[in-house]
């Protein structure tokens, strides 16, 4: 069974705060992804990683940064949150048969 976890599920913070969204998977997948999704809208890839110590920016420009120090962990950080960062952030990992497994998402609101 696919196990990919995201915390927190919901986060409301003030402008200028630094935040880290956590993502962990227990499947040993090398490839992991971060997507940004406004409610009911399409998914936009903002970061991806193909293994430890390898990260790349996605198709949608984002002020966030990511790190991949361990296979199972792929956190996303915003150094100074702004209202324009309000969105849902989805983490995913990819198995050998090309299937991407998604976490439940973090809904971020910046006041």
């Amino acid at each position, binding site marked *: 069974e696919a196990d990919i976890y995201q915390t927190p599920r919901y986060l409301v913070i003030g402008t200028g705060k630094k935040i880290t969204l956590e993502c962990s998977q227990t499947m040993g997948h090398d490839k992991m992804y971060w997507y940004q999704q406004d409610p*009911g809208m399409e998914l936009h890839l903002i970061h*991806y990683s193909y293994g430890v110590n390898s990260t790349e920016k996605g198709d949608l420009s984002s002020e966030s940064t990511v790190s991949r120090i361990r296979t199972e962990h792929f956190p996303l950080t915003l150094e100074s949150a702004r209202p324009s960062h309000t969105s849902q952030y*989805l983490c995913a990992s990819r198995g050998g048969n*090309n299937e991407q497994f998604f976490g439940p998402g973090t809904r971020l609101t910046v006041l």
Partner: protein
Amino acid sequence: QQQVKQSPQSLIVQKGGIPIINCAYENTAFDYFPWYQQFPGKGPALLIAIRPDVSEKKEGRFTISFNKSAKQFSLHIMDSQPGDSATYFCAASRFNAGGTSYGKLTFGQGTILTVHP
């Protein structure tokens, strides 16, 4: 050339109806076409996927039809149920891409499906 266009944006059917969602792609290098289902407050989940070596794939009540020459594929939901009400996303990628692709999915814009009882 990476775009995937999905239609309609929303769809309302009665229980037992057969909603059809369509997608068109541009990049002829794409060879993996999944459909994802997303319920409110949840992440997307893989529903069914097709490779271009077949023109149709069926899993339970869900069927993908694929037209390689037209670069189009569609999802049909047979005997739709209220529990099928969700947002559906098509996507496309290269199946075993190396280099900089790394299996990145390009998603369609999504279709909000409502099935009335």
